[in-house]
């Protein structure tokens, strides 16, 4: 159905709404966010203040960066379920290596497994054509195994959260969380990469029609490999930020963020089938989920109920987007 055909005849309201949602996904998302905040304020009058906003931002930022990993991989029709393990690994290694090592060395050591896992993911998906879900699930299983072995070797030395990560994770500057110093450049970089660089266009091209992209000379495996390495690096950096926020290194530190990160990207309008979406929607999606989590905590919804809700959100939103695309 071409747009000229629909212009000439009156269009039903529902159809117009659908088109509007498809063309400007940001506006309904922001409306949803505002509605959630209003509900929160109604349930607990006075809760929405400066401190609450700063706190919400602090918790939304790690989620938003991980959701950025999902956004970029989803644009190519993939997904990266190893982000939780990668973030946990880099956080744990950083916290334990900083005890005896120079911060710079500890940082490099913490980023090393991230790059390695990303590379293996990329080779598996790009060269061997394993489904990304299975591949990243497998590498995260292996990563967790390595982490358990590693944990045994550092039990004696103990762990410490570096002051800088503390400052970055929980500190405030003029009421703004310091994590924004990390997040704003990262977000700008992701948005710029996706919208303005050749690499970003390649991601959309590969996700939209892989065969056409290949035939026009795109080196598929190179694009995919660099994509998964970037995704893993971002996850590793998120791990460092998150350990500064949570302050308790554990072997399942960032695991609870994996499901919400997928949900945030899906809510933000990125199609899980590839080729459609962007990072700005994902950021709003991460904010929505963080506010929703606060809301559910106030309503005493247990962790299990939250997961059920997130599952339904992913399914419902995907089905809805599919309808919108089919209609065009």
């Amino acid at each position, binding site marked *: 159905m071409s747009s000229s055909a629909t212009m000439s005849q009156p269009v039903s309201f529902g159809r117009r709404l659908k088109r509007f949602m498809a063309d400007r996904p940001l506006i309904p998302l922001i409306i949803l966010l505002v509605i959630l905040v209003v509900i929160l304020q109604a349930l607990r009058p006075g809760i929405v203040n400066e401190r609450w906003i700063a706190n919400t931002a602090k918790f939304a930022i790690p989620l938003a960066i991980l959701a950025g990993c999902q956004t970029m991989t989803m644009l190519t029709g993939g997904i990266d379920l190893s982000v939780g393990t990668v973030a946990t690994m880099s956080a744990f290694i950083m916290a334990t290596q900083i005890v005896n090592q120079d911060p710079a060395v500890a940082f490099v050591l913490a980023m090393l497994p991230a790059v390695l896992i990303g590379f293996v993911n990329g080779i598996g998906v790009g060269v061997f054509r394993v489904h990304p879900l299975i591949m990243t699930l497998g590498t995260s299983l292996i990563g967790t195994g390595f982490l358990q072995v590693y944990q045994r070797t550092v039990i004696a030395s103990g762990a410490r959260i570096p002051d800088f990560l503390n400052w970055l994770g929980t500190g405030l500057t003029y009421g703004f969380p310091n994590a924004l110093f990390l997040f704003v450049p990262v977000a700008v970089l992701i948005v710029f990469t996706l919208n303005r660089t050749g690499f970003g266009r390649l991601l959309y091209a590969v996700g939209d029609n892989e065969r056409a992209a290949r035939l026009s000379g795109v080196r598929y495996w190179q694009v995919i490999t660099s994509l998964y390495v970037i995704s893993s690096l971002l996850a590793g950096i998120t791990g460092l930020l998150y350990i500064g926020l949570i302050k308790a290194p554990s072997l399942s530190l960032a695991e609870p963020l994996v499901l919400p990160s997928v949900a945030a990207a899906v809510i933000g309008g990125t199609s899980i089938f590839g080729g459609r979406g962007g990072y700005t929607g994902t950021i709003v999606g991460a904010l929505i989920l963080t506010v929703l989590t606060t809301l559910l905590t106030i309503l005493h919804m*247990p962790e299990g109920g939250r997961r059920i809700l997130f599952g339904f959100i992913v399914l419902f939103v995907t089905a809805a987007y599919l309808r919108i695309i089919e209609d065009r």
Partner: protein
Amino acid sequence: MTRFLRRQGWVAGLLALLIFLFVVTKLIQPGYGSGDFGSLARAVLPYAFAVAAQTVVVIAGGIDLSVAAMMALTSVTAASMMNGASEEYAFFVVPFVLTMGLVLGALNGFLIVVTRVPDIVVTLATLFVLQGAALLVLDAPGGGAAEWLKATVVGTMPIPNVPDNIDAWVPKALVLLVVCLFVIWIPLRRSRLGPSIYAIGSDELAAFRSGVPVARTRIVAYALSGLFAALGGLSLTISTGIGAPIPGPYLLASVAAVVLGGVALGGGKGGLLGPIIAVFVLRLVRTDLTLLAIDPNVTAIIEGAIMVAVVMFGAFITIRGRPAGATP
């Protein structure tokens, strides 16, 4: 005919590999006897059911990511229902849990058919939902199991007129596995439904045009997957005596064993025997690693690496089988 020979050849090769591994095991541990074989059969039980669940769906041309979560949910449901209840109550619990698996599996298939969202996304969403539901039922490992149920997997099957030393090699767990699989699989293969499942996996459009009710067959395939997963969950509860809400590594293991068992991930090919032998192979490798006194965490890494390698190999074979330049 050649395909038939090739499939049987693959299964025969696997069987040879299994026998070779038994010989290796005997060489590593000269004392390896019937008791160890019994514990191997017990360890295989939940994995084998998970693989059976995955096999049915993969043959039908889909994939079920919710297998492990389904096992966790059915396991905790059974464990919490039997906790402190009378022995006879378990006679009600077992059919209840199996029906639950069947219905939830059918729901998976129903959602795929109705929403037309790809199976991988729908089952990812139900993975979240089922995991959440499992956490709602039990938020920490706990519960109990009826004694007579526990007795069904411990010890050996007394067979009249058979000398004890042969009888010792027939553990009850193995008998239970074989009986359950046969009771479900053989009538299925003999009925119209079996060929229909293969048909929709091989070529959905061709199956539809030959009069196969594609939607109904798909729902039935997922329902069977749910039933097998529920059997897996029950066997977990029975063999450990408790239920754990966090799913084990059964998803990746099931996909790896399906690939190793000669079932093409594209669908329409393979049988149940190959994947089941593949599970024994994978478990026996683990036993061997343990017998070699390798750290259990390192064993987990090696196991994960083997599974990822198997999946990569399977995907590689799939590309080789396709005409060059075709999209997956």
